[in-house]
């Protein structure tokens, strides 16, 4: 059992310049309270790994708006003109990664793999600087694992053991990221006693979680 901490205390664990995986897809399933606390404490120089920057004022978009982010690895920024403008202005360095490759690289990082071979990106700008490996006459890109200092996870429920559940499309990258960071902080909507979540309903085993944010008040 762990002690739940406030979102502000969670944000205080994350130093300027840290690399941070943040769950969510267009803001759905993003840890909003930790994000708000990071903005409030004016964190600077983050490297963010996530699917997208949602919209201005939404999800990871809030960190972009507030100037917290120096670098980001994402699959798209098309819905957030602030991100695009900051990229063009040279204020944020953006690394665009195909969405399936992003998922596999994060999974490889949490899984102890040295990399994965994917056909995605072969013959495109994505292959730049990467090794191409042929298997049975077909070309694949060697894509390397991604890890981060922190993973910020939004879950539907947590039990006192930090076993996590997710709801519908709010799951997305969250369970992958929970394996791939040195410090995993989960922000649940609800905290329930041990035994309330059946073993088969758990999507992230609690042993992966280092800190739990208290339930919303």
């Amino acid at each position, binding site marked *: 059992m762990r002690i739940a901490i406030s979102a502000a205390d969670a944000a205080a664990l994350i130093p300027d310049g840290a690399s941070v995986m943040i769950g969510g*897809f*267009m*803001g*759905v*399933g993003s840890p909003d309270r930790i994000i708000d606390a990071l903005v409030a404490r004016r964190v600077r120089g983050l490297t963010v790994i996530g*699917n*997208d920057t*949602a*919209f201005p004022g939404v999800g990871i978009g809030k960190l972009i708006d507030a100037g917290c982010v120096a670098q980001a690895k*994402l*699959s*798209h*920024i*098309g*819905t957030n003109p602030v991100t*695009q403008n900051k*990229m063009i202005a040279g204020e944020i360095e*953006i690394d*665009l990664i*195909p*969405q*399936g*490759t*992003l*998922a*596999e690289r994060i*999974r490889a990082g949490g899984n102890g793999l040295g990399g994965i071979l*994917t*056909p*995605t*990106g*072969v*013959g*495109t*700008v*994505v292959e730049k600087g990467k090794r191409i490996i042929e298997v049975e006459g077909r070309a694949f890109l060697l894509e390397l694992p991604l890890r981060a200092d922190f993973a910020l996870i939004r879950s*539907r429920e947590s039990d006192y053991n930090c076993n996590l559940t*997710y*709801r*519908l*499309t*709010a*799951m*997305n*990258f*969250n*369970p*992958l990221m929970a394996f791939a960071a040195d410090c995993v902080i989960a922000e649940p909507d609800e905290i329930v006693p041990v035994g309330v979540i059946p073993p088969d309903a758990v*999507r992230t085993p609690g042993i992966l979680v280092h800190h739990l944010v208290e339930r919303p008040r």
Partner: protein
Amino acid sequence: MDAKELIARRVALELHDRTLVNLGIGLPTLVSRYVPHGITVAFQSENGIIGFGAPPPNGMEDPHLTDAGGGFISALPGAASFDSSTSFALIRGGHLDMTVLGGLQVDAAGHLANWMVPGKLVPGMGGAMDLVVGAKRVIVAMQHAAKGQPKIVATLTLPPTAIRPVSLIVTEMAVIEPTPEGLLLRERAPGVSVADIIAQTGADLLIIGEVPEMPVAIPNEDAA
């Protein structure tokens, strides 16, 4: 019928019973309104669900349930949700029967560019590269030309999405199939001549015999 509706209704005729289909954001999403009667299609959204339906009634929105564009959707009975690696296992692993994507350009070999305009628009590829590599059939649904410039071109001037050719191009003027011999003009839109199509196309077209008029699906009130 405007251009987008025409395209969506033609693409809908490519749907087959008991298949898994992914619709890109924007125009492709409209296809779900025209699923032919008697056909059951499961729609996947790459953010993690199979079996989603129309936007919910006002006040019924669930913040945990959106499409890949962030818009509220509903879940149909028998839906299944999953994480992003499983979602792309479906896409890259060959389990997706068809994807419908928007396009900026398609070239004579059927190569698609749909994710950036260098120096202007850099939205990112999202799931598009995986979809073009992995789906069994890739259908490009796009307007035939943009600002008077053909979008079907001899050679891409924009960065390609993948080196795999797409399966079919559907525009408001024509249905065109990339083949090893070149772009085959299969159908023309109602009231559009072959000469009109050639004039608006930046690549050579193969024309074999009479080019039939494009059929379209009728709206399906039951569909998503």
